[in-house]
Structures are given as structure tokens and as C-alpha cells.
């Protein structure tokens, strides 16, 4: 037990240490915690020239195609057939839109094209189509872009296959996803960078915003696809059985098909770490590559939608867009690097989330997230205390509801945040066993179904700085008892009773005394004009 004297002495020591350390450290990191001022003028005068040092492969006209890394898990996405079909339809949606954009049918993109895509989304194909066969003109005109897209889509497909496998253990999946990343980067030169790139810079080009402005419905579809492509990762990563995955996809897929595809009021494209924060933290390079890929989609869309660009300029700007997100301009750079005078090389990431680069007007500590406002990714979104979601700690959870996924620090924070949100929700919570995460799926009234029938909870509500110790989930009563035994010195846990799921679900905590609403310099940076809109 700590003594009062000990605490006071240590407090004085800590205070002095902080005081002495600050000036030197502040100088060393000057500017790192400031939002970059991105100058994002629009139109012909702002068009940037094509770099002269393009990598050789970018001008290659040779045929060059590689297939999947070998693995018994390939095509296991079909274990969750409904999900597989939705992904197949996404490939059709991409292709139809691109083909019509480059074959003089852009004027009907919001009507005929949208309706054709929508029909496919509602009647998804059984098998994955080859995109270049559905968009042959686009593939011929922008062959190298098609290569970049295809190869990164292979990474998407294979990582999902691994996660949907019923043959691999969780540990094997973890290793194989690392191996897939190496295969992705090592097999061909046209790979997307795994560095966090500054999203505001990428969305601050001379043409940025054109597509979403002219074709809001089709742009909504694109961003809806990107939402699903991110949302399934944490869903699958926390699943330990097909049943876990299917029960979650029932809700995720419904949300995608009924809401996310048809949203036309998003401020920005869905970011990978916003929908799958756990996977993004474990595999930040993959998360960053997918965000960079999705940003490349946006840039290409904007270029093709900018009528003031000639065909030659479109070709050059698409090459320039590819150049910005691949490895070539970032050789020797690493995550965290920051050059205040060159946003292309701003590789800062959000504190607590290495799988997410800087957003519009963000700092590593504070970002604006559509529908959530200003927030920190390193803190619990219910009680504002620092996060530690390492599954080995046995605490921490995420909540998915209304299209967002938020990290929280304890079971109470998860339950109460879900209770305060309309509609169905998924809680993915750590338990004492890292191999058995708890998955709770709620109905509209907050009644839960669970993947662990014997689950019990501890909840002895106290101050939130320690909520991860007094509010937790356990796979069974024995684990609960063992936890109490291991913490017998903790006065606040003495006499704690195990709560069943029904008892725990009906409870409601107090408003966390630690909660703080973050304030940014403006209410919503995406409503300022420029870059986004």
C-alpha cells in the first residue's frame, strides 16, 4: 500500500521533473502539435505540375499482373456469404462509375449510372468480377492506375480472407496479415505507401471536391463502399467463430445497405481507423495504405469530374495523384516525420492511433470527426480518460452504432455510451482471456445478445480514472472470482457481486466526472470552404 508521505514526496519529485523537462522538449518538438496551414486554392491557376522524377513503372505500358499470395484461406470471405456479395457489388459499382465517366456519360452519372449501380448493390453478384472487364475504356486509358487499384484491392481481399478463415487461429491470422503486407509491398513496385499521409493536403488539390459537388449520390456510394471496407475489419478481428462474424455482419450489412450507401451529407470520406480502430492500431501501415488508396479514389474522381482539365492534364494529374500516395516521394521517411513547410511529407498520426494521418485542421491530439465533433483518439470517448486497449489488460471496448465506432475504457462506458445512442449497437469488449473477446449486439431497446453465455460483469462504480479496474467483463464466474482474489487489496472491489448480462444491461452509470467535451478552433472545419467543401 502506498503511504501518504511517499505520495507527497513523489509528487514533488514528479513536479520538478516536469518543470525541468518542458522547455527543452518544447523546443525540440516545435510545430509538431500545430495544425498545418494548408493553402488549397482551386482552379487552373492552382494546378501543380507533374513531377519530373516519376518512377519508371509509372510510364510502363507493358502487361504486368500478379495474383494472390498462396494460402488455404483464399476466398474465405465466402464463409460470410452476405458480406462477400456486398463486396462483389462494390467492384461493379466502382467499374460502372469509372467507365461512364470516361465514355461521355458523365451527365447521366447521378441518374442512369446511379440506378444501374444501385440495382447491382441490391442484387449483388455471387462472384467477384474483374473490374477491368467492366470498365475496359477506363482500364485502357489509365492502365497504371488500374494496376495500383487492383493490387491494393488484392490486399483488401486477402486480409479479409484471412480474417474470415475458420482454419487459422487468431495468432496465425495475426502473423499472416503481417506476411500479406510484406507480400503486397515486396511483389510489385506499384504499391500504396503505409505512411500516414496528411488527408487535408491530399484533399487540397486544385480539383479537390469537384466530384462530390457534381455527383453527390454517386460520391455517397463511393464513400459508403469505403465505410464497409473499413467497418468489417474490427468486426472480423474480434470474431472467434463464424457465428461471431455472421451475427455482427447482420447488423453491419444492414447499416451499410440501408444508410451508409445513401448518405450525401458526409463531411469527408470514412477513415479506416474511424471504423476499425483496433485493427488499425495493430496494423497501422495497412490502415494507412487503405486510407491513402481511398484518397486516391477521391482524387481520381475529382480529376475526372473537372471539366476544365484537358485530357492531357487529366492524365498528368492522375499520375501526380498516384505519385503522391506511393512510396517514391517518401523514401527514407517514417511515421511521425514532420516538415511544417511540406505537407506532402507530414507523416504525423493521431496520438494513440498510428493508423490515421492528420485530418483537416487536426493536431495529433485533436481531430474533428463527422458526427462526433472534436475528439482525441487516445482517450475514452465516454469518460475522457486515457485509453489502453491492449487485450492482455482485460479491459477496454469499442462501440459501433449509427455508423461510427468509438473506443472506451471500461464495460460501463461501453454500455452507457451505447444506451445513450439511438438504434442497434455492437459492443466488442476485452475479457480476462485475450482469446475470448465479448461481443454484445443490442436491439433498438438496448437488450443484448452475447457470444459468451456465461459472461459476468463486475461494476462497483467509482471515479473514472480507475474505471478499467472496477468495471469489466469476465468469461465466467471463476474468472470473476480470480480477479477479485488477485485484487484483494483493493478496498473498492471488496464484496463486489458478479452481475449477469441482464442485470448489467439494466444498470446505468452516473455521468463520468472526468468527461470533457473537446473544443476546436471552429465548430466544423469542413464547412469552411476549400479542400473539402
Amino acid at each position, binding site marked *: 500500500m*502506498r503511504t501518504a508521505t511517499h*505520495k*507527497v514526496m*513523489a*509528487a*514533488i519529485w*514528479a513536479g520538478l521533473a*516536469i518543470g525541468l*523537462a*518542458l522547455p527543452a522538449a*518544447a523546443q525540440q*518538438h516545435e510545430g509538431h*502539435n500545430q495544425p498545418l496551414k494548408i493553402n488549397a486554392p482551386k482552379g487552373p491557376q492552382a494546378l501543380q505540375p507533374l513531377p519530373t522524377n516519376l518512377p519508371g513503372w509509372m510510364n510502363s505500358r507493358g502487361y504486368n499482373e*500478379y*495474383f494472390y499470395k*498462396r*494460402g*488455404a*484461406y483464399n476466398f474465405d470471405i465466402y464463409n460470410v456469404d452476405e458480406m462477400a456479395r456486398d463486396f462483389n457489388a462494390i467492384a461493379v459499382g466502382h467499374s460502372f462509375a469509372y467507365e461512364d465517366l470516361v465514355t461521355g456519360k458523365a451527365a447521366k452519372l447521378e441518374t442512369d449510372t446511379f440506378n444501374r449501380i444501385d440495382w447491382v448493390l441490391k442484387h449483388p453478384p455471387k462472384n467477384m468480377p474483374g473490374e477491368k472487364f467492366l470498365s475496359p475504356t477506363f482500364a485502357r486509358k489509365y492502365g497504371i492506375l488500374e494496376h495500383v487499384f487492383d493490387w491494393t484491392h488484392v490486399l483488401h481481399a486477402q486480409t479479409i480472407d484471412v480474417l474470415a478463415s475458420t482454419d*487459422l487461429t487468431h495468432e*496465425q491470422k*495475426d*502473423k499472416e496479415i503481417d506476411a500479406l503486407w*510484406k507480400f503486397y509491398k515486396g511483389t510489385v513496385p506499384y504499391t500504396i505507401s503505409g505512411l500516414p499521409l496528411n488527408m487535408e493536403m491530399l484533399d487540397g488539390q486544385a480539383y479537390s471536391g469537384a466530384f462530390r459537388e457534381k455527383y453527390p449520390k454517386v460520391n455517397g456510394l463511393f464513400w459508403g463502399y469505403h465505410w464497409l471496407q473499413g467497418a468489417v475489419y474490427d468486426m472480423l478481428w474480434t470474431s472467434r467463430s463464424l457465428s461471431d462474424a455472421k451475427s455482427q455482419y447482420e447488423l453491419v450489412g444492414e447499416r451499410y445497405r440501408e444508410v451508409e450507401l445513401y448518405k450525401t451529407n458526409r463531411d469527408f470520406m470514412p477513415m479506416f481507423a474511424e471504423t476499425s480502430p483496433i485493427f488499425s492500431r495493430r496494423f*497501422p*501501415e495497412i490502415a494507412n495504405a487503405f486510407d491513402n488508396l481511398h484518397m486516391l479514389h477521391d482524387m481520381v474522381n475529382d480529376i475526372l469530374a473537372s471539366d476544365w482539365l484537358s485530357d492531357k492534364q487529366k492524365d498528368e494529374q492522375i499520375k501526380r495523384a498516384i505519385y503522391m500516395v506511393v512510396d517514391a516521394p517518401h523514401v527514407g521517411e*517514417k*511515421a511521425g516525420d514532420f516538415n511544417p513547410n511540406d505537407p506532402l511529407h507530414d507523416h504525423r498520426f493521431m496520438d494513440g492511433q*498510428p493508423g490515421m494521418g492528420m485530418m483537416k485542421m487536426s*493536431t495529433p*491530439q*485533436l481531430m474533428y470527426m463527422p458526427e462526433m465533433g472534436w475528439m482525441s483518439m*487516445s482517450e475514452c470517448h465516454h469518460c475522457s*480518460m*486515457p485509453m*489502453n486497449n*491492449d487485450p492482455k*489488460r*482485460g*479491459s477496454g471496448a469499442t462501440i459501433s452504432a449509427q455508423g461510427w465506432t468509438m473506443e472506451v475504457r471500461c464495460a460501463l462506458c461501453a454500455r452507457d455510451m451505447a444506451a*445513450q445512442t*439511438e438504434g442497434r449497437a455492437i459492443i466488442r469488449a476485452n475479457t*480476462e482471456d485475450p482469446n475470448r473477446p465479448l461481443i454484445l449486439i443490442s*436491439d*433498438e*431497446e*438496448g437488450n443484448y445478445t452475447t457470444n459468451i453465455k456465461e459472461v459476468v460483469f463486475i461494476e462497483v462504480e*467509482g*471515479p473514472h480514472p480507475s474505471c*478499467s*479496474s472496477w468495471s469489466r467483463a469476465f468469461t465466467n464466474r471463476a474468472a470473476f472470482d480470480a480477479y477479485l482474489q*488477485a485484487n484483494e487489496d483493493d478496498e473498492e*472491489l471488496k464484496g463486489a457481486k458478479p452481475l449477469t448480462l441482464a442485470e448489467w444491461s*439494466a444498470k*446505468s452509470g452516473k455521468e*463520468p466526472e472526468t*468527461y*470533457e467535451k473537446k*473544443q476546436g*478552433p471552429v465548430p466544423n472545419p469542413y464547412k469552411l470552404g476549400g479542400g473539402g467543401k
Partner: protein
Amino acid sequence: MREIAAALLPLPKGSDGAHLPAACLNARPTACVRPPVSGPAYTMAPGFTKTLVPSHRDQVAPLAHEADQDKTMNAFKTLISTLAAALLLFGFTTPAQAHETDCPYCQLSVVQDTKEKDNEVVLRYGNKRIEYRCVMCAIAQAKTKFKNDLTILAPSNIKGKHVTITRTAGVWAVKEEKAVFVFAKGSHTECQDRYRALTDGADFDAYVANRKYTEAKKLTLKEMVELSK
């Protein structure tokens, strides 16, 4: 075809699962401490604000299988407590604010309760407890989104006294017999005042006169339910 066939072969043994660069790995427990608000890693940009909350208890508790980490963790816990105390000593803290959210119906911010006045409307639906900006938003949402029984706790003109509205088997009722509802059409940015429950109809005239709501109506619950959309 050969490549497709190769891709379908079993996973080779010893597939490489080497770790990612250190900069990209998950924060360890030692990084779980909230650094001082004025420290370099947490310096807010100009125009950004952030409050600090004291952390006066341990951040984490050990699991049964983590006995070997106990010593490290105890030292860590001590450091956490003392750092928090240090922060208090040096005055780096400010009070936390109330929980804030947007109204799911009108999308405007839910106006927070103050010392003098309650503003937050709470709709209870099963285990859900959803906040709305005004009583009209809550009733309108109840009519369109929720099919089963529910309860709405509407703030009144008196601090600490709520008007309790229920819908049971489709029948709306209000617990407080003398309760009425103010319905003063106007900007929805003032909806928390323009659409408000009063515990006693006798307070209506004074309430609308104070706010200069010249065309305000005094409604029963039935009328309020009809007009809420």
C-alpha cells in the same frame, strides 16, 4: 491458371509475421498516463482548448495471470497517483464539463442543464436513455422511430422538477396532473425554451410573458403529441 492454382495451395509453414516498426505499435501501459497539459506532447494549438482531469486512483488493475508484472505495475501505479497529485499541486487542472451530445432528431446540440434551469430531455426506451434538445423533438422521434412503450422525462420551468410523459400500449399519459406544454413557434435554435413542459398550467402566462412569446399556445399532452413532428 498456374498462379490461381498456386494461390489455392495451403499456407506455407513459417509465414513471416515480424512486428511492425516501433513507432507504429500500440501504446504500452507506460504511455497510458495522461501527460501534463502544458507538456510538449500535449500543447494545444492556438485556438484549441483542452481541460485536464485529475487522475487520483490507479489506471489499471492486474489480472490473476499477471502476477509477474505486479512489481512493475505497482511502481507504475505509484507514479500515476503521484503524477496526478503533482498536477494538482501545480494547478494544471480545470473542472470537467457535462456530457454533451447532439439531438438525434434536430441534430442541434443538446443544451446542457445549468444551476438554475434543466434543459436536457431524456427518452427512456427499454435500456436506452437518449437525450433530446426539447420535448417536441423527443415526442416527434417517439412517434416515428419507437414502437414500444417508452418514458420521456421533460424538464419543466422549475429546476429539479421533471414532467414525466409515458406511452404505454400506444396510449400517451402525463404523470403530473396540472402539467401543460408551451408551444411557441419560432427558431428551433431556441426550441429548449419554445417547447417546454410546465408542471402547472398556472405558470403559463408568466413563462411566455417573460420570454415575450406573444403567440404561444398552452397545450395539453394530447395536443402536443399531435403537433410534434
